């Protein structure tokens, strides 16, 4: 088993909704296309499907929360001015 390849595969499943959907639809072919070992492919056919979906959703919320926290803050009066169409210096 190549742990790097497996971890990378799982990271893609957890973070990429399209990859996750492909994997849940056909775990064997998706894992084989990623170049995983045959014994790992066999293990991945016995997946916790609901768990994968729960986890993917949770990780997405966490990433979104981190992006919001990292975004520059906008003062309320700037937002109000923009809403009124005022030009700000």
């Amino acid at each position, binding site marked *: *088993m190549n*742990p*790097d390849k*497996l*971890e*990378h595969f*799982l*990271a*893609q499943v*957890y*973070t990429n909704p399209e990859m996750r959907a492909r994997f849940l639809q056909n775990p064997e072919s998706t894992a084989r296309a990623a170049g995983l070992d045959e014994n*790992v492919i066999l*293990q*991945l056919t016995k*997946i*916790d499907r*609901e*768990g*994968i*979906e*729960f*986890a993917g959703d*949770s*990780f*997405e919320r*966490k*990433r979104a929360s*981190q992006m919001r926290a990292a975004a520059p803050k906008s003062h309320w009066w700037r937002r109000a001015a923009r809403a009124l169409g005022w030009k700000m210096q």
Partner: protein
Amino acid sequence: MLNLQNDRFGLGWRPELSSGILVHLGQIDFVEVIAENAISENNKSVPLETIARHVPVTIHGVSLGMSSAEPVATKRLDALARLIGRVGPVSWSEHLAFVRSGNIEIGHLAAPPRTRATIEGTVKNFDRARAITGSAPLLENIATLVDPPASEMNETDWLRGSLEATNAQMLLDLHNLYANSINYQFDAREALRSLPMERVRAVHLAGGRRITHPRTGAQRILDDHLHEVPDAVFELLELVAALAPAPLYVTIERDGNYPHFSQIMSELARARAAMARGRACRMQQLATAS
């Protein structure tokens, strides 16, 4: 780094809780600071060094990705080493999790496949972390919403294997263990009895909530740190106190949805009471055995 005779009780340091913590320092034995917040904020709020002069500090990392075949980035360990050097914490800790692979950031702690390979990866990262920071981290068990794919062993066997292979001490997160026991149907009390309790040096207490799968209606517990510590977790804490021989640092973690500060202090008091009952039970057992 831990060298105490008695158990200690503390809170996770959060800006929203800072005034309450500072007012109640006489009733709080220590505070736990998130390493990444301290490194990124660079003392824009209450300077960490100032806090450390008034109360012992522990440091808790959340983004190294210790349980991974991928080596922990040296720059992250260097930043942590500088933080540890500035603050002089009682201890520092990280998670038995992976958080990234290549250029993919998962965004949170993910349970790695429970295999010999991930134990070996943990050992390598642990040894590097100890070498660069100058001290060994406590390793924490995590909650997981997914039964880790391609696993070869169960959670307690993998935790025990990781701790023995690294010779690390453990930060035992009881809500994480509780959530996993509910989600994957195992007995949390039996799991505690099979863990190497002699390695436990710290405990985390937190709360979570049930989430529902939109398609199947299945429910799992999410360890979100936004709710009060459940009764079942305090009961597990009492058992930990009866089983663990070493003094423990017990932390209440709360990351949002903050109640009145008096409620958090009530949880701390409840933790003290649970530990006292467990320690009394332990003393009785030891007296009976001798």
